């Protein structure tokens, strides 16, 4: 029932949000007001664009995440079979961790973990 279940929960979310939005699209009273549809910025008109190139700091961490998460995915199958493979798996993962740790140390030393 797993695959149907996925569809079911997807549909549930869809229904809840869809119903709520449709409901409050028709039921509440509407009022027209020019100021109402302005962007909120503490009551002052916005100055300049808001969709511009943004600080690289955020992306840097996304890239870091990508590197480490891809490697973390390899850990999952290892974690499951750890109990059976015992020592071999342990030594293998130790090597893996050392490499991963070195990568982290490298990033640390290169100040990549420092927020700019």
């Amino acid at each position, binding site marked *: 029932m797993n695959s149907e279940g996925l569809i079911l929960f997807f549909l549930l979310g869809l229904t809840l949000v869809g119903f709520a939005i449709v409901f409050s699209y028709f039921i509440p009273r509407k009022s027209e007001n020019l100021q109402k549809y302005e962007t909120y910025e*503490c009551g002052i008109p*916005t100055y300049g664009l808001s969709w511009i190139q943004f*600080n690289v700091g955020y992306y840097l961490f996304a890239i870091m995440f990508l590197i480490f998460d891809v490697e973390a995915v390899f850990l999952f199958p290892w974690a499951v079979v750890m109990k059976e493979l015992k020592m071999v798996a342990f030594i293998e993962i130790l090597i893996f961790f050392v490499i991963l740790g070195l990568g982290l140390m490298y990033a640390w030393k290169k100040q990549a973990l420092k927020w*700019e």
Partner: protein
Amino acid sequence: MEDILLKNKLDKEQEYFINMGPQHPSTHGVLRLLVNLQGETVKDLKPYCGYIHRGIEKMCERYTYSQIIHLTDRLDYMSAHINNEAVCLLVENALQIEVSDRVKYIRTIIDELTRIASHQLWWAAAGMDLGALTTFFYGLRDREKILDIFEETCGGRLLVSYNCPGGLMYDIHPNFQKKVKEFLIYFKKKLPEYDQLLSGNVIFVQRMKNVGLLTKEKAISFGVTGPSGRASGFSSDIRKKEPYSAYGNVKFKEILREEGDSLARYKCRIDEMWESMNIIEQLIDNIPDGSYFTKMKPIIKLPEGEYYQRVEACRGEFGVYISSKGEKNPYRVKFRSPNFFNLSALDHMSRNQKIADLVAIMSSLDLVIPDIDR
């Protein structure tokens, strides 16, 4: 040539301006800051004031001297009583009226209670600005005890209007001394909790440390007084420099720190609360007998000349400048508001800090907007 123009234009477009205020939770009132951001970092900011400007200085030119007092309440409403005292002291000094020791003692005690209440609210709001909402309720809970004392004696909670030229509006309430002593016992238990909740907290310390640095030279140059200035090592306590009321009779330390960052400003205020309690303790049992009011002429006329009186309000030096032409109304009144001077340093302090630091710096400066706008 064209290339440079185009590049300039692009740079212009890439600038990211954000308005903080006038309707913003962190400005504690209607102050507007136009912040130029680069990612999360503040490049510079410009304050825009005047949203709550009431022209108090102009109004004062039409009022008699006793009427001015109730307007000073409305400048820095957190140190209402101290502001009142500045005008009263100015008038008394100008007319060379000697008020009784009782008046001086009571004024000093209420001054210090005002200071504690103000710092309690500041502590509450400082925690709230940094996201620890619980502190707000603890601070206000303790402040309520002081406001109750004020209400019983002065009749007002926030804007007490208890001073008048020549003394006080009425004598202290019979319960006053008892209540103040009870409060001291109560608050001595609660103040360590403030430390446990915020001062020692690793998140809080890291958010405040080395944020918004202000050197001593810059603090003097910007005229940053009060706890904010003293955190930079600028010894600006009027209570020590030019003692007024009963400050000459008490022993207390001027809290000074060298670091000049937000954490130092925070700690200065916490220590000032202890010091204020120390001052009250010395005075509360020794209030001398005497009249609470020196009779004055019904219409006060200051002799021609110019007068300046400074007092230590909760956020720094509060000064009143009055130029008199010998009439019952002053010719020109100017209030030296500590917050306006403190605000001028905000741009300098928050450059190259993060936007979250800007909030921390503002809460450590403890700006009260009506005092800036007047």
